[in-house]
């Protein structure tokens, strides 16, 4: 190692500024908290406001950049195993967009999984690229997408051989990992850069018991959220990249375009500190988190009426690794949706979960948890199950059948960019057959779009969305969330 991973140059500079006690005539207007509204001081505390600084002029020297961010990024690049690392202050969203925009211009094809994060679609709209979608299989038992199999990847490369890049999301939201070394080999064999949206895997590289990380597996670039599972502030992410198949100069230019020119010094400092913590102590911290998660999983699976997804998933096609620190739990057997379970946990037991949909809840176990948290979770779920077991009735099975019956992707008639910027009009759903969608419609579950901008609307899709609207299925994306109308290209 050439860098000392114990160092935190950016955090140090921030604290140095604070400790010198400057009189501020710079942004922000609250001036180190003195003018902040009382409610804000109460909520976030004066400590934060005292280090809420503009990057230039306060933390850095205005005469010449002392390269603090660059220094912190260099150490982080080494920690995550990449040639370059960019600190992102606008979340992994901005990282995915930067990669799409810098890798593919108007009309150029890229291979992307259909269950990509929504930032992928925004990237396609900004770049003008044409997506070649790989459709992941939906796991019939849990109603969530599995990952991309090597067979599906090979097929996509065969049909879209001129693609400028191959994107994959790994791990998925529920912790399913793709066969990254195999996919990297396939992409590279076809001369395509291999890019991984590793938003949910910032910890992988730092603990030998966790799945292999994207850069080790041969990715040319990866985006990971520092805030999701490790110690960064919300919105903190990093983008890692290797030269060779990627034009780093162009990427750097686009990354700069997607970030505020008044970046939050606190977000930079939190990335710096989180990297230090993982590089120096990650193995121990995540070994403990894994123990806690396995204890929770085993206990939940002993509760009559509840089930927690575990590594039995590894035998299913498209799933070659699993992050056990993600807990996906269902109470379908007790007749409860994920939303009901989430509400009960929140209101009756004071437990806040990561996400809920009609089927499941998802919880994160991290190095920030301790034994007491896990015991409280398990005791709460036991108590809940005991109280509600009598309620009975398997409404969950209906949801599951519904989620598994996603209509087939039709075809991309216009690029997402052309469709988005076209004149469009809202039409009653029943009249949309044969039209081109101007918007995205993603039902949860399974969190895979049924429609994206530029896609042909089939009768099957109209039927599906009619039923989804009647059932009140939760959708993201369209202007009319009740699905009575869809916006189509005019």
């Amino acid at each position: 190692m050439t860098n000392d991973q114990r160092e935190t140059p950016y955090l140090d500079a921030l604290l140095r500024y604070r400790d010198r006690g400057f009189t501020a005539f710079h942004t922000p207007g609250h001036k180190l908290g003195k003018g902040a509204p009382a409610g804000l001081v109460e909520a976030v505390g004066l400590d934060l406001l005292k280090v809420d600084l503009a990057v230039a002029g306060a933390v850095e020297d205005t005469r010449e950049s002392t390269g603090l961010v660059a220094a912190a990024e260099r150490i982080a690049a080494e920690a995550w195993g990449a040639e370059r690392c960019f600190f992102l202050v606008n979340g992994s969203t901005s990282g995915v967009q930067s990669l799409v925009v810098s890798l593919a211009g108007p009309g150029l094809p890229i291979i992307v999984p259909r269950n990509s994060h929504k930032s992928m679609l925004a990237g396609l709209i900004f770049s003008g690229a044409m997506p070649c979608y790989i459709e992941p299989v939906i796991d019939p038992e849990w109603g969530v997408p599995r990952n991309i199999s090597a067979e599906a990847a090979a097929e996509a490369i065969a049909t879209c051989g001129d693609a400028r890049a191959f994107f994959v999301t790994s791990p998925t939201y529920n912790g399913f990992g793709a066969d990254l070394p195999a996919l990297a080999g396939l992409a590279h064999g076809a001369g395509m850069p291999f890019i991984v949206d590793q938003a949910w895997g910032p910890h992988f590289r730092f603990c030998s018991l966790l799945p292999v990380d994207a850069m080790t597996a041969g990715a040319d670039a990866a985006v990971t959220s520092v805030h999701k599972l490790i110690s960064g502030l919300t919105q903190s992410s990093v983008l890692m990249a290797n030269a060779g198949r990627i034009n780093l100069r162009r990427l750097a230019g686009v990354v700069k375009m997607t970030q505020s020119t008044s970046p939050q010094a606190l977000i930079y400092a939190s990335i710096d500190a989180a990297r230090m913590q993982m590089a120096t102590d990650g193995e121990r911290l995540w070994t403990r988190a894994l123990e806690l998660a396995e204890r929770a999983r085993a206990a939940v699976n002993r509760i009559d009426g509840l089930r927690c997804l575990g590594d039995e998933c590894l035998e299913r096609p498209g799933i070659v690794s699993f992050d056990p620190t993600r807990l996906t739990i269902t109470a379908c057997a007790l007749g409860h949706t994920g939303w009901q379970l989430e509400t009960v946990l929140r209101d009756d037991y004071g437990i806040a979960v990561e996400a809920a949909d009609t089927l499941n809840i998802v919880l994160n176990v991290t190095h920030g948890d301790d034994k007491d948290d896990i015991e409280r979770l398990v005791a709460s779920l036991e108590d809940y199950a005991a109280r509600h077991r009598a309620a009975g009735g398997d409404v969950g099975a209906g949801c599951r059948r519904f989620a598994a019956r996603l209509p087939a992707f039709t075809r991309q008639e216009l690029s997402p960019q052309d469709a988005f910027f076209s004149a469009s009009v809202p039409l009653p759903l029943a009249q949309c057959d044969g039209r081109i969608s101007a918007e995205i419609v993603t039902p949860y579950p399974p969190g895979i779009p049924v429609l994206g901008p530029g896609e042909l609307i089939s009768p099957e899709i109209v039927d599906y969305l009619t039923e989804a609207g009647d059932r009140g299925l939760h959708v993201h994306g369209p202007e009319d969330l009740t699905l009575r109308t869809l916006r189509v290209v005019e």
Partner: protein
Amino acid sequence: MSASQTSDSGRRGPGTPGRSGGTADRGDPRQRRTPVLDGLLQYRERDYVSFHMPGHKRGRGAPPRLREALGAALDVDLPLTPGFEDTRQRAGRLAAAEELAARAWDADRAFFLTNGSSGGLHTLVLALAPPGSVVVAPRNAHVALTDGLILSGAMPVYLEPEIDGEWGVALNVPPQRFQDALVEHPEARAVFVSSPSYNGCCAHIEPIVAAAHATGAAVAVDQAWGAHLHFCSALPADALQQGADAMVTSVHKLTGGVSQASLIAAQGARLDLARLAALVAMLRSTSMLVQILASIDATRMQMVTEGEGLWLRALELAASARARLDRVPGLRCMGTEVTGYRSVADLDLTRLTVSAADLGWAGYDLEWELRERHRIAVESADAIGIVMNVTYADTPETIDRLVTALTAIAAEGPRSGTTGADRATQRLTLPPFSRLTMTPRAAFFATTRTVPLRSCVGEVSAEVVTPYPPGVPVLGPGEKISGEIVAFLEDFKRRGLRVHGPHDPALDTIRVVERPLEDG
């Protein structure tokens, strides 16, 4: 009518009837609500066990020195998801807070942004200037506007701002130049205005709006430095009050937001608000920092309910600083004389642009001196002057400390031994910028090569080159490089001045277009 009269009529003294925005809602009890901030406080009070993002779990897992730096803030670092509010109405609190903000700024819609006004400008450019369209914009617009054009693929028609040679800063673009451009380019769909400028100079927005609306173009204002304008009658007028269709403003720059807190306010008459909303959703992170959102919410409440008094106080403090600094021999402070320019309608007097160039001080050195010897941190510095913000967070003590320090520096007499501010730099004449031969997008994504500066004549630039002073680009992506521009840059280099933008800041080489990006 003289320029100063224009300025006087534009300024609304306390008690002046008319468009004194904010006042309409000042008595509205709903404006005391802070839905996002309340959600944060409620989460903390209920003391949830967190099984959600972020991984530090309310700070417990964070490294100790990060905890030391951020304190209680980690305890309320939350996603806008379960715990914060009902999952099925996850936009509930944010939407309510945005609606209150829309009302506060007298707009049809408002959007909270957590990626700064840069993100807001990208959004507005994409919303108003889609691929293939033409947009009129000032040459000295913030770099985020060019970035937005690179993302959207629109073609800009740039207008030159007036430049004050003494201060070496760009002012605004005179309204006549907008009117002429709209006659020449009736196809333009959108007009962008930057106002106030970095030094607080406000543009004549009303005539620009009138000209644009007459040809069917919408007007968007980069009002990054004007979040406070709507809330105090003694400050220059707000962009929306002058008829603009949309504006983006930095809630963090001069008011109570934390860094990266910004806001778009827009009217629906000429803008497709649904498309704008879709673009906002695409460009903001799906994991927004809730402390930023809460700070926008709390600041809106503070400005509506107390803004008038708070900013009157800030204006008084700034006036006392100006009066004292003007008496110190060798120091100069930019004042209302700038309203004598055709492009300047008004000056935000809370922004202090100060120079000790007459004593041989470069702004950079003055900033260093204030920082290292007097522990005073300024907003920015260039070769000539320094810029400082006075806000309602200042007190007579902070102002006194600033004035005392500057007085002490000036009392040491003329600076010797160094060149200080090279007076000649103030008389730099910018070369005329050349026409675009392709869109900024086509040039940015082109195949490029690096060429020595002196061999660049006739090539098309792939990058932005902005000399400071005065902070106006001489080259942008897609623009032909003239002999005049090369000569200017060589001269600029010789004087040891700085440029922003190019990959080679030393300017030995420029990156030029070899083969532009082609569609398909």
